[in-house]
């Protein structure tokens, strides 16, 4: 890995996981990288995720985050639809 890119861990949950057909993967991103950049890359790899364009939420390292959140090497990015627990 060179210093112009980072590797993050991606977790998918709920309908996003089901659409992508995968629950966890590694993802390389060029710097500077935001959650939105990761989302774009994931949609490229898993086109079915495009259905969640307006609804997908993200968490970085187990904290709710916004799409403009800046990612660092080794971060865990979770992608999911609005929560529906309880």
């Amino acid at each position, binding site marked *: 890995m060179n210093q112009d890119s980072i590797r993050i861990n991606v977790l998918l949950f709920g309908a996003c996981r089901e659409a992508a057909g995968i629950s966890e993967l590694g993802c390389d991103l060029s710097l500077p990288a935001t959650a939105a950049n990761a989302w774009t890359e994931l949609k490229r790899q898993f086109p079915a995720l495009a259905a969640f364009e307006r609804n997908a939420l993200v968490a970085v390292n187990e904290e709710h985050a916004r799409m403009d959140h800046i990612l660092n090497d080794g971060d865990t990015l979770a992608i999911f639809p609005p929560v*529906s627990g309880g």
Partner: protein
Amino acid sequence: MSPDIFEITREPIDKPGLEQRLVTGAAGAVVTFDGVVRDNTKGRSVLTLQYEAYEPMAVKEMQRVGEEIRKQWPDVERIGIVHRFGELKISESSIVIVVTSPHRRVAFEACRYAIDRIKQTVPIWKKEIFEDGEAWVEGQRPDSDQNHGR
């Protein structure tokens, strides 16, 4: 260490056991919310519910709800929140929330706040399994709710 309880589990929730751990001598009111699987959604028969959780984050978010409660209602004695995941049958409990306090108003308000917040922030998703199909339950986008921001 906080005496409050925040757990995610695959096993059936032991509601009496949870309540027992939270009743202190100073407590006069125990308010419990128990969310159970309904046999229908808008009239369509439900067979089971499948809950999926982002476990470590879910526990963190439940703890955060606990912190919010203690800030808003300092008189709360104890808070317990246990959320189950996996496949649940009709009338099984998906979540049990227990709040104890010296007087009832605080326990009622804090317990209701807890379930409202959990439905906004805790990363858990559920899918309804019908006789003839299945569907993820749609959550609310956080920005559609003014209370979400923090």
